[in-house]
């Protein structure tokens, strides 16, 4: 995959940008530049060995997204525009010609795409496994409710108990208060309860969540456990430490960035870092589309 992406990057670097080009073509160029930057960062950081496995997966996820998106736009352009237009863009070569040699390339490209998708699928399953594991830990850490704090016959404040005594002798006389002590207390013992209350649990949950948001700045899922995502490709750039929303484009309604996933965050950061105003605009458009798509 890396070879494929790097090969496409060299193509993109030589692509001229003119303001007269069609919107879709601009999008292809903008996405390709973002991909070029992501691949470059990935290669440099890998050489520096400053990447965690998770960060590397994030990069790859983003690059696969960009590649698939570029492929999609190129296919549309190939259908709606002339072949010459597509040739001037960083589109996959394998789809261009119909002669035997390029068909073989096309098959090769599809296989690689399947491999990329397989890898994406596999990574996604692994990430989900990690999440499930964390959920299991969270569940295990859950403390049973303090079952002595609330319910008793006639109401928690004992007022009704007085009513019972004065009113129905039979009923109050039966108030042994024994209930079912063995079950819940046994359960509490199993879970290793040491008197921690539900209030503590809630507080922990809140802390965890807000810690996640803080670490990730404007990015990621808001779960503390996923804070590794916060150190993604462009972490430390303008995205870090942002508040929960940002204006996707000057003059437009601000988007909530607090729920950005890996791809959204990196798209946003690519848009923020893009100097060319036309390409910047296109990247913001892609960001908006992506956000609308995942909602």
């Amino acid at each position, binding site marked *: 995959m890396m070879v494929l992406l790097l090969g496409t990057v060299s193509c993109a670097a030589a692509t001229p940008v003119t303001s007269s080009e069609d919107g879709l073509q601009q999008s292809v160029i903008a996405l390709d530049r973002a991909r070029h930057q992501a691949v470059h960062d990935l290669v440099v950081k890998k050489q520096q060995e400053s990447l965690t496995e998770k960060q590397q997966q994030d990069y790859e996820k983003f690059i696969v997204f960009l590649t698939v998106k570029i492929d999609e736009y190129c296919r549309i352009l190939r259908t709606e525009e002339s072949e010459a237009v597509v040739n001037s863009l960083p589109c996959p070569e394998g789809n261009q010609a119909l002669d035997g040699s390029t068909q073989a390339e096309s098959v090769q490209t599809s296989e690689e795409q399947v491999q990329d998708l397989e890898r994406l699928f596999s990574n996604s399953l692994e990430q989900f496994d990690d999440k499930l594991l964390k959920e299991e830990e969270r569940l295990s850490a859950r403390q049973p409710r303090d079952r002595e704090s609330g319910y008793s016959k006639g109401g928690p404040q004992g007022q009704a108990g007085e009513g019972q005594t004065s*009113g129905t002798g039979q009923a109050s006389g039966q108030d042994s208060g024994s209930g079912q002590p063995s079950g819940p207390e046994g359960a509490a013992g199993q879970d290793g309860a040491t008197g921690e209350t539900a209030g503590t649990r809630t507080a922990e949950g809140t802390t965890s969540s807000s810690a996640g948001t803080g670490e990730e700045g404007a990015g990621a899922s808001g779960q503390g456990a996923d804070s590794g995502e916060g150190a993604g490709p462009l972490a430390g750039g303008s995205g870090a430490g942002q508040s929960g929303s940002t204006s996707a484009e000057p003059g437009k309604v601000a988007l909530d960035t607090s729920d950005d996933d890996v791809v959204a965050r990196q798209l946003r950061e690519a848009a923020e870092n893009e100097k060319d105003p036309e390409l910047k605009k296109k990247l913001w458009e892609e960001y908006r589309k992506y956000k609308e798509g995942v909602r």
Partner: protein
Amino acid sequence: MRLFTFIFLLFLASLFFTGCATVPGKQVDDQIAPLMASREFGDHELLDVSIKVFDPGELPEGVDDRSGLSNEIREAEARFVPIHLKFSMQRTGYWGAIRIVPDDDIGAEVQVRGKIEFSDGESLVLNVEALDSRNILWFRKTYAETALLNEHLGTEPEKQDTFQDLFNAIANDLTEYRNRLTSEDMLEIQRVAELRYAKLMAPDVFGKYLSFDNNNSIQIDHLPAENDLMMERVRSIRSRDNMLIDTINGYYEAFYLDLWEAYANWRQFRSEEIATMREIKREAFKRKLLGAAAIAGAIAIGATTDNNSVATDTIQQVMVVGGAYAIYTGFQKSQEVVINKEVIEELGVSFTSEAKPLVVEVEGETVRLTGTAKEQYVQWREILKQIYARETGLISDEAIPDQSSGTIK
């Protein structure tokens, strides 16, 4: 003679009108033993069951009937009841994994749904239906049980509920139906369930493997190859899905244990109050009737006796005064019912305050987990679609990425 007959009839009437409360549905038998497996079954004989969180139903319409009940209590019961049913079924050894699911489970081998028709602590009435993955309805029945006061004692989480007879009756019906299935039936149920799930995850691939027959049952038209890669991918998703549901079930079980004591107490104390109130009502009614009968008797004596002797007059006066006093004490007795009602209301308020946060917590965790998973499943579906499109070269209109969607294609 006629007077005594009159009084006797009134007495019988009083007993008749103040008898036990009635609930809808046929009562299950008393002391129902659960059907237990006599041997250990292999995987192919164990069907997985998904029990959907029950429909809480409606509270009774009458003001008195719904006294001390609340929608919050029903919401708690709608989760508690299926969880206890799960435990009751698990112990029998006839089933594979039994899971509580918040919604219909498209990949379930056996799906159980239920509705609480009536529940007031003393009685429980459930409508339950079970169907398998082939869309074949096993049964749809109403189960009712009015617990005796002693059935509120000796209960134990997961094992012995106040309405254990009712739970055993449902579990036994499911077992009986399961025992009627052939091994071919079970295999078909398992395959259809898997293909239904596969169709959900990869409709382009598995959309035509199943069809409906004339009875609206689902049948298998094709089977994937044993080493079908796409099915392997679907299975890997399914196993994650099951693990997620298991996690959710962990929260359901924690909810069940947290609720247990408060729920058991509420049901016991409420039943005692209802029994007491019923006794008071019966006593008050009896006194009023006897008083009225005494006065009516005195009038009758006066009307049928020509000679107003001193003795007769005295009997008449005693009967009138005694009758009036009996009626008076009957009304006094009735006042005690008001106090009982207040106690029942208080019990309801107290239990509601206990149950509500537990329901909110378990529901919150369920929504959080399923919400996260839904996003993930959308992404997996997209990936499977793209893999299929690239593997086969069959990029249908449906498979072409939606331009407005930025999800990974």
